[in-house]
């Protein structure tokens, strides 16, 4: 077990180092770290001095080390466009993205699971076909189209929900939340659904196929033979078996939800990191791009690691196969 944990930790660190290397290359070579310190009329000597002060003449490995240490202390330099520390900008927007990601993951689970169970149990019923159809549309309609459609329907035509922004925000220390007010929830509903639809589809299909598979296994057949009630078989035996992979996937998807939030945040003008990242790409704001890259990778690796460890604690077989692989 310990060996497994160490192995996994080692891999996580390795992945993070690789990503930091990319982020560093982006920051150091694609961007120009001196950009926010010099103007057009800064003399060559002054420029050289600034480069020296910033350590840009040091050996590259030393610079990389410095970059990583700074990153570990949440120092990512200063945004070219906003003239503010990147860490501060990210900190301001981090809660918005995290809450959106969380809400959409919960939505995807709460809606996707029952749909998956149902279609797994009654694969031929009309409702199942409808669910299947919905799931297909869910993966076929691009996120931005879904967002536009929702805004058009529920904000403009019906006037039920706010069309943009994050409202009803309450400050809790350095965190801001929109979970505590009705206004906040109202503004969260459509972005969360838009972002979660794809994951919902994923979960529904996963649960469905897991259910189909489990229902065919011998022990379910035995359970049937023993005369257990169908509901007991379905929920106590079959569903339980599908839960672990489903929760694993949802956990892992949280990482990509954060990245996909770029689209949703743009459509709904949601003040999160994704919107900021997109603006950074359009205005070539390298420090923000590099920091965002590192942040998303870190989040992903952490989630990955947590799921991994939890999972191996639950199912000892993984540890063994983990060694073999």
């Amino acid at each position, binding site marked *: 077990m310990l060996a497994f944990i160490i192995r996994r930790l080692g891999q996580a660190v390795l992945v993070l180092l690789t990503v930091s290397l990319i982020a560093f290359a982006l920051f150091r070579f694609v961007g120009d770290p001196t950009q926010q310190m010099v103007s057009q009329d800064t003399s060559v000597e002054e420029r050289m001095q600034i480069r020296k002060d910033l350590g840009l003449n040091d050996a590259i490995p030393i610079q990389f080390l410095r970059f990583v240490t700074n990153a570990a202390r949440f120092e990512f330099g200063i945004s070219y466009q906003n003239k503010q520390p990147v860490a501060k900008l990210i900190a301001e927007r981090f809660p918005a993205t995290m809450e959106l990601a969380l809400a959409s993951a919960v939505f995807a689970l709460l809606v996707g699971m029952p749909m998956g169970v149902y279609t797994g149990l009654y694969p031929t019923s009309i409702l199942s076909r409808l669910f299947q159809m919905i799931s297909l549309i869910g993966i076929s309609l*691009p996120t931005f189209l879904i967002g536009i459609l929702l805004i058009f329907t529920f904000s403009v035509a019906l006037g039920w929900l706010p069309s943009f922004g994050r409202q009803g925000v309450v400050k809790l220390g350095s965190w801001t939340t929109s979970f505590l007010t009705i206004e906040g929830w109202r503004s969260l509903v459509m972005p969360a659904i838009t972002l979660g639809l*794809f994951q919902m589809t994923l979960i529904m299909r996963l649960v469905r196929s897991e259910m189909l598979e489990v229902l065919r296994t011998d022990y379910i057949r035995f359970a049937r033979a023993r005369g257990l009630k169908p509901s007991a078989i379905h929920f106590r035996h079959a569903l339980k078996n599908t839960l672990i992979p489903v929760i*694993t996937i949802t956990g892992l998807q949280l990482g*990509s939800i954060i990245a996909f939030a*770029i689209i949703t945040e743009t459509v709904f003008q949601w003040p999160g990191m994704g919107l900021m990242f*997109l603006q*950074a790409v359009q205005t070539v704001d390298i420090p923000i791009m590099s920091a965002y890259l590192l942040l998303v990778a870190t989040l992903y690796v952490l989630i990955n690691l947590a799921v991994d460890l939890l999972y191996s604690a639950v199912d000892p077989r993984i540890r063994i196969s983990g060694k073999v692989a």
Partner: protein
Amino acid sequence: MQITPEDAKATSPSFNSAPSEASLAVRFFDSDLWYSFTRSWLTMLAAAITLLLILSAVFAPLIAPNDPLNLQTLNLMDGSKPPFWSQGGEWKFPLGTDQQGRCVYSSILYGMRISLIVGFFGVLLAATIGIGLGLVAGYYGGRVDAFIMRAADVQLTFPAILIALLIDGTTRALVGTAKSEALIFWVLVISIGLSFWVQYARTVRGSTMVERNKDYVHAARLIGLSKSTILFRHVLPNVMGPVMVIATINLALAVITEATLSFLGVGLPPTEPSLGTLIRIGNEFLFSGEWWVVIFPGVTLAVLVLAVNLLGDWLRDALNPKLQ
């Protein structure tokens, strides 16, 4: 079924149980695909629509009544015309025109063409990288395998959109916005290629590991065939079945990715519009009553992706013995 995080991630939205049995490839050619095809009218409809759309994209220059890419033929005075059946519409522009006088119908045909070409090249690149690395990893195993699979882990950290945005931003920073627009086609292709290869690599690796120990490979080795011959002549054909399934589903994803990037304003420019660009431009007119500028490209994109996905679904189900 064991789920490691990598496997879980590799599970594509519609591709849940990646078949890794060699028998599967055999099944691909032996199974009554045609039978299952003719059994489902939805699949047939999807195939018909896909074919129709692909053909009309391929032959866009022949079908389209106007050339939306040739700016010299645009006349501003034709701007914002409704579809032919509405008042003020004319046959010359069957689905109306946009603000610049560009024929919406022709733009859709050409836009779909660009979207499909980007998607096709992207998937091709992804498959090439993925199959190559998968074969190598599966055949050699050991450190090579471990390295490639860890690279896949790093890769999975970044969804396609993020990779594309990063590559796009980097190109802008390196060569300037003007030049990067000229390169945008390849930026999109490379982004898609780089973000979708992992699935192929995983699948091919799994199949190769199984094939590697089969008698025919041993026999091939015994008669002194080179490793590359064994890999490409003997192992590869046997893993092509699942690869085709992934490629089909990936094409749909690639088209969506391209559209999304163009919608976000970092894709193809309005003078060379893809479906996503058309939707982005059209979106500006959502509330002005000129619905045709956004609805038609939107519907086309949705129908195209839906049809390809339906085909992919059917292929997967038909090839997956467990679900039959």
